[in-house]
C-alpha cells in the first residue's frame, strides 16, 4: 500500500501513540519486578511488562521501515514532548491496586485497538496487530480474573477495588484522545478512530465491572486527561524517561 505524504504522517502518528503507550506502561509495570504481591503474580506481571516492550519494538520497527529513525534511537533519545503516550501510562505504580486497575483498563482498550488494527487496510500494521493479539488477550484474561475476584471477594477487597476504579477510570479516557488527522485514517480504512474505540471499550468495561460488583460513576469530563497525544505530559514522564534512558545515555553508540 503506497501512502501519500498526508496519510503517511497520520499513520505514523497512530503508530507512535500506540507504541509509546506500550513502551511507557511496559517500563512502569516492570517496576514491580521483585516487589509483586506474591511470587506467581510478580512473574506474571513482569512477563506481561516485557510483552509490552516487545509490542512497542515491533511498532517502532515498522516506523523505521516508514522512514523514521531506528527503534533504539526512537525509544531512548526523544525528548519528553516528542512522546505521544497518554497520561494514564505515565503515573507512578502506586499501590498494587492502582497498577492492576490501570493494567485492566489499558489492556482492554489495547485488545480492542489491536482487533481494529487487525482489519486495517494498511497490511503492515494489520500483521503486527494479529501477531500480538494472543499476548494481549492473555493480559486481559489475567486482569479480568483479578477484577472479578477482588470485586466479588470480601468487603475489604470490594471497597479497595472500587476506590481504584474510581481513581483510574477517569484517567483512562486519555487513551482515547482523538489523534491529529485521524479522519484521514478513517477515510482510508486504516483505523476506525479513537471515538469508535472508546465506545466499544465503555460497553465492555461496563459489563465487566457490573459482574465484578463495581459501581461505575461518570463524574469528570472525558477530555480532562487529554494532552499526551500532542506531546503534553504529566510531571511523571520526565523522571521515567531519565531512568529508562540512563544506561543508554552513558554511551549511545555502544554495541550491545
Amino acid at each position, binding site marked *: 500500500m503506497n501512502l501519500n505524504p498526508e496519510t503517511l504522517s497520520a499513520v505514523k502518528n497512530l503508530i507512535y501513540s500506540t507504541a509509546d503507550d506500550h513502551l511507557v506502561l511496559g517500563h512502569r509495570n516492570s517496576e514491580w519486578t521483585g516487589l509483586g504481591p506474591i511470587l506467581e*503474580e510478580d*512473574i506474571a506481571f513482569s512477563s506481561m511488562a516485557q510483552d509490552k516492550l516487545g509490542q512497542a519494538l515491533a511498532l517502532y520497527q515498522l516506523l523505521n521501515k516508514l522512514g523514521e529513525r531506528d527503534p533504539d534511537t526512537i525509544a531512548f533519545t526523544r525528548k519528553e514532548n516528542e512522546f505521544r503516550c497518554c497520561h494514564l501510562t505515565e503515573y507512578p505504580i502506586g499501590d498494587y491496586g492502582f497498577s492492576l486497575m490501570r493494567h485492566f483498563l489499558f489492556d482492554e482498550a489495547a485488545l480492542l485497538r489491536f482487533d481494529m488494527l487487525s482489519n486495517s487496510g494498511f497490511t503492515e500494521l494489520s500483521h503486527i496487530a494479529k501477531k500480538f493479539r494472543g499476548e494481549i488477550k492473555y493480559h486481559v484474561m*489475567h486482569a479480568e480474573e483479578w477484577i472479578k475476584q477482588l470485586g466479588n471477594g470480601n468487603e475489604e477487597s470490594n471497597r479497595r477495588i472500587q476506590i481504584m476504579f474510581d481513581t483510574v477510570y477517569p484517567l483512562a479516557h486519555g487513551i482515547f484522545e482523538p489523534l491529529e488527522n485521524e479522519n484521514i485514517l478513517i477515510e482510508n480504512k486504516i483505523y476506525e478512530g479513537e471515538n469508535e474505540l472508546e465506545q466499544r471499550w465503555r460497553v465492555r468495561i461496563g459489563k465487566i465491572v457490573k459482574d465484578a460488583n463495581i459501581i461505575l460513576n461518570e463524574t469528570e469530563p472525558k477530555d480532562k486527561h487529554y494532552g499526551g497525544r500532542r506531546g503534553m505530559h504529566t510531571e511523571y514522564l520526565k523522571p521515567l524517561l531519565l531512568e529508562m534512558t540512563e544506561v543508554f545515555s552513558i554511551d549511545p553508540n555502544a554495541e550491545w
Partner: protein
Amino acid sequence: MSLKSLDPRITREELPDVPDNTPLKDIHHWNTFEVFHQSKTGGHHIHVGSLHAPNAEMALILAKEQYARRYNCVNLWVVKTSDILASKKEDEEIFETTPEKLYREASGYKVMEKINKFKNERKKG
C-alpha cells in the same frame, strides 16, 4: 523484632523472629495447585510443577506465565494438590518386579514383519 529479608514481600509481612504456632488463616495461606502442560493437541498433559493460588481459576491464569511462557503449549490443566491421591512411599515395593516383566510387553511380539508383508501385498494387489 520481626524478620527482615532482602525480599520485601517477606519483610512487609512483619513475621515474628520466633515462629508462633497459631494456625494461618486461609487468606494468608493459599493452596498449591499442580500444573499439567500439553505441548501439542492430542498429546499427553505432563506434570510441570506447582504454584500458589487462591482458587483454580486464578491458578490457571498464573500457570500460563509460570509454566507456558517459554515452551510450546496448547493447553494447561491445574489440579488442587490436595485432590491428588498418591500411592504411599512405604508401598514402593509393590512396583519392584515390574522391570522383569518384559514378556508382558507388546514389544515382545514380532508383528512388524507381518504388517509390512501385508502392506506390500496390498500395494501389489
